[in-house]
């Protein structure tokens, strides 16, 4: 997967992996993230970073719910330098969402990923990522999840 440097337009190879104990110490000390990530410790938390760098560019927390054959996305946040009009890299949140879709296929959940977002943002997530509504939740599955993987993780060219 690749992140695009907004100013230069160059693509940089990126990696998503599990957040390590030492990462928690860095997150807690820094002001790169606005949300209280400490309370996400009870869930699975992944980070995205450039291939040869340790700096965390974004975080995602999710829950595996096998009984309902789904991955539930709880929180995503880009680091401070990747927010707003002057962000450093593009595609961070998209890559993090796409990776959860991939996990949902690996686990035979039909690529089903759910989230219960803030009401004000529902339309935007539907529009940007193709999520659909189900009850009070949003979800993606099958073709749309595969589309997100192809768009953001681009294994096949």
């Amino acid at each position, binding site marked *: 997967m690749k992140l695009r440097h907004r100013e230069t337009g160059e693509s940089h190879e990126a990696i998503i992996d599990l957040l390590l104990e030492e990462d928690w110490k860095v997150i807690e000390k820094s002001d790169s993230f606005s949300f209280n990530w400490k309370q996400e410790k009870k869930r699975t938390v992944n980070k995205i970073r450039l291939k040869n760098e340790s700096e965390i560019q974004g975080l995602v927390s999710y829950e595996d719910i096998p009984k309902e054959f789904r991955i539930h996305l709880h929180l995503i*946040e880009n680091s401070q330098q990747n927010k707003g009009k002057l962000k450093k890299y593009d595609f961070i949140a998209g890559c993090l969402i796409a990776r959860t879709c991939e996990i949902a296929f690996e686990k035979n959940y039909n690529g089903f990923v759910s*989230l219960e977002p803030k009401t004000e943002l529902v339309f935007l997530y539907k529009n940007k990522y193709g999520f659909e509504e189900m009850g009070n939740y949003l979800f993606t599955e099958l073709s749309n999840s595969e589309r997100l993987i192809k768009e953001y993780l681009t294994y096949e060219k």
Partner: protein
Amino acid sequence: MKNNKEVYKKLREEYSAEEIANFAMIPHETTEKEAKISKEEFAKLRLKRRAEMSEKERLLSGLLNIKYQMKSYVDSSYFDTSFNFANILGSYLKLVDRKQKEFSEDISIHPSRLNRILKGKEKIGKKLAYRLEGHSGGIIPAIFWWKLMQKEVEQEILTEIEMKAEEKKQVNYIVYKTKNKKIA
């Protein structure tokens, strides 16, 4: 420490909702009771949706399940003897509900060759990887089949000590001889 609602309120002072949607995915804050009702309702809807998937959707889901399991395995650094080419191709045949004879006709190879491949006695070449990609309608790319096969070959090279020794006997001239056997 601020809760999500307070953080969001603060972010909204600086960014538009659209900008926030581009850099964050934020959960809806509700009371415990409301969250429980929502969750239970959603669980029912989700299971209903899964139960009502069409045959075509099930097939797509199964193909993508095989594809991403393959990807996860070939990207990993471990070897799993049960996750071999023959077994995965066998799972594929089961998923697409094709008998060996039908499948060999589908991809224009001799049934005995397919049988050897399914028994792990023959390796595939690039051409067959392309045919497998074609058979799945492009859902499982040739490169995934190829990498799966290559991972198996890698494992064989690392573990086939006897064959390696046997084949070395066929070498009639060695360009560089070392006293240190560890290098050889």
